[in-house]
């Protein structure tokens, strides 16, 4: 087993919640709470969860767009959390991000050519004379014509803008791209085009993706491994086949059940979760999910579950008392 490209260990990101006239910190928002996972080179890790679960914050914390509160992030063996600003700038060549909102992701008053040249100029990629040619190549790779160079972002559709965003991320030849809900804002017919493009790019250039999404069907399609988040914690992590065929955590089960399938045969005979997602500022005691869990036991209210590996030939991590042999399921 080769060395993972990305190793995240016990990563946490807390936000202080200020209140009062003199900005006394009243409470802490645990947006990301002790998350650990790894990603192999050239593969895709799907991070799935609902709004407020912390997946976007996690993606940004890995890139140090938010500064992690604690924990470690190793990219290709190199610890990112301790880099100084100069080293960090150099490290940014290896990791990029594409965003959800194609309308806000590109500078409105710059042409495509300037948007794509900026990373090349900043990181001094290739000789200056060759960079324009490189911009043309990037546009070609993402399936846009070369005339796009002199146009402005608002002249393009959402799907095309997303392609420009992907071209910008590719410009520095990163090893890891964080795709934060990259296709969620696109129409269905454009979504599949962009997903295919990302798969092609992975095959061609060996770039790894951290694919953050709330759409389980999309995640299944693109990922090799999947992590399910709830209230800042990873509650289940495994290969995509296992998560979708043998979900172990009750929340994963509920998520999978809740997805409306384009199949009229399957109607309303599924488990609908009760209640609302608790506030991340004031999470429940014990297991964060116990307030909505159909299989909650008394221990779930008191004790936070440990991460257990229930997999046989491959890793399948679950944070749930139901799967913890050390806990009495009384």
């Amino acid at each position: 087993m080769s060395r993972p490209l990305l190793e995240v260990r016990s990563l946490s990101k807390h936000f202080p919640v200020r209140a009062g006239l003199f900005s006394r910190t009243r409470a802490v928002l645990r947006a990301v709470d002790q998350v650990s996972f790894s990603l192999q080179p050239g593969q895709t890790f799907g991070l799935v969860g609902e709004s407020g679960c912390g997946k976007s914050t996690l993606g940004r914390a890995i890139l140090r767009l938010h500064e992690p509160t604690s924990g470690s992030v190793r990219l290709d063996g190199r610890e990112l959390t301790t880099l100084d600003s100069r080293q960090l700038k150099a490290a940014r060549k290896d990791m990029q991000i594409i965003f959800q909102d194609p309308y806000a992701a590109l500078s409105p008053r710059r042409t495509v050519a300037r948007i794509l040249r900026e990373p090349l100029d900043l990181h001094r990629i290739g000789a200056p004379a060759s960079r324009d040619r490189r911009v043309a190549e990037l546009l070609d790779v993402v399936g846009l014509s070369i005339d796009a160079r002199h146009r402005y972002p608002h002249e393009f559709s959402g799907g095309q803008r997303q392609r420009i965003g992907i071209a910008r991320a590719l410009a520095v030849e990163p090893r890891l791209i964080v795709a934060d809900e990259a296709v969620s804002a696109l129409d269905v017919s454009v979504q599949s085009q962009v997903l295919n493009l990302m798969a092609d790019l992975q095959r061609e250039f060996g770039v790894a993706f951290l694919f953050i999404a709330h759409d389980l069907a999309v995640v299944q399609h693109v990922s090799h491994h999947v992590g399910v988040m709830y209230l800042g914690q990873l509650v289940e992590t495994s290969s995509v086949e296992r998560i979708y065929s043998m979900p172990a955590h009750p929340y994963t089960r509920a998520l999978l059940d809740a997805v409306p399938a384009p199949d009229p045969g399957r109607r309303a005979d599924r488990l609908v979760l009760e209640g609302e997602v608790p506030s991340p500022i004031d999470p429940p005691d014990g297991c964060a999910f116990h307030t909505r869990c159909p299989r909650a036991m008394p221990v779930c209210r008191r004790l936070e579950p440990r991460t257990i590996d229930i997999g046989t030939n491959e890793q399948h991590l679950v944070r749930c008392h139901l799967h913890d042999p050390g806990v009495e399921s009384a």
Partner: protein
Amino acid sequence: MSIRPPDMNPGADAALEPAAPPRRTPAKSLWGRALQRFAGDRAAMAGLFIVAVFFVIAVGVWLGWWGTQWSQTGAGQWLGPSTEHWFGTTILGQDIFQRAIFSTRTAFEIGLVVALASTVLGALFGALSGYFAQTFIDGVILWIKGVLDSIPFYLFVAAVAFALKGNPWAMHIAMIATFWTTTARLVRGEVIKLKNLEFVEAARALGLHPLVIIVRHIVPNTFHILLVQATIVFVAAIKSEVILSFLGLGIADGVSWGLMIAESTTEVMAGHYMNFIVASSFLFVLVMGFNLFSDGLQDALDPKRASR
């Protein structure tokens, strides 16, 4: 990494088919679209016309084409309008028309200098303040702004004029020092909104230095605010000059409408109104025209309609 186009979906290139041109082609760039909108706004075009006429007058004075005899005395006191003196003369026998024309140049000078300088300062401090909002830099800038805002304008100007006694730029400096705060406040608000947008995050993810991000990515997206504010400050400067001249704190050499109005207070008592009427009318028309122009500009540049 060698870039070779991978085996793409053949239909993907159809993604960039330019559609057949629509009936009325909207211009390509954001500025072009704004220009089209502006041109279609009649009040705005009228305003632009008025401003242009006055601008030409001002340039002509500056180049020495007309208005050169503004200070010449001795033509005879309070003559009525005649072919020689189109608007008559003042108490010192100076040609009112010549003085009004010359004042146009003064007005534009003050307006342009103050508008330009205060907009630049406002953009600079507003952007820094907004990007580093809630930090020390923001705190310092906000404090300076607060202090300047709480000093009554004319007291401040009087103080500066006194301190810089004899300096022909005293009034300009005083105005710039107070007018930049409004621009800065508006820019700060806009920058706070902009800095959370994804394209700014993308710039950070690339590793760009914050100052580069501010100058290259953020400030250009505030141009619509800056342009409109500049025109507002222009008008405010001209109007303020009128009152300052009234208070004797105005320009030292040359003449302005403010000075003319100030002089005319005694004349009006004696029943001679031409000086006052002419100066006020010129002032009124220019301010009116500029306001129309400014409103039109604001509508045309409204970014909610400018993009998408």
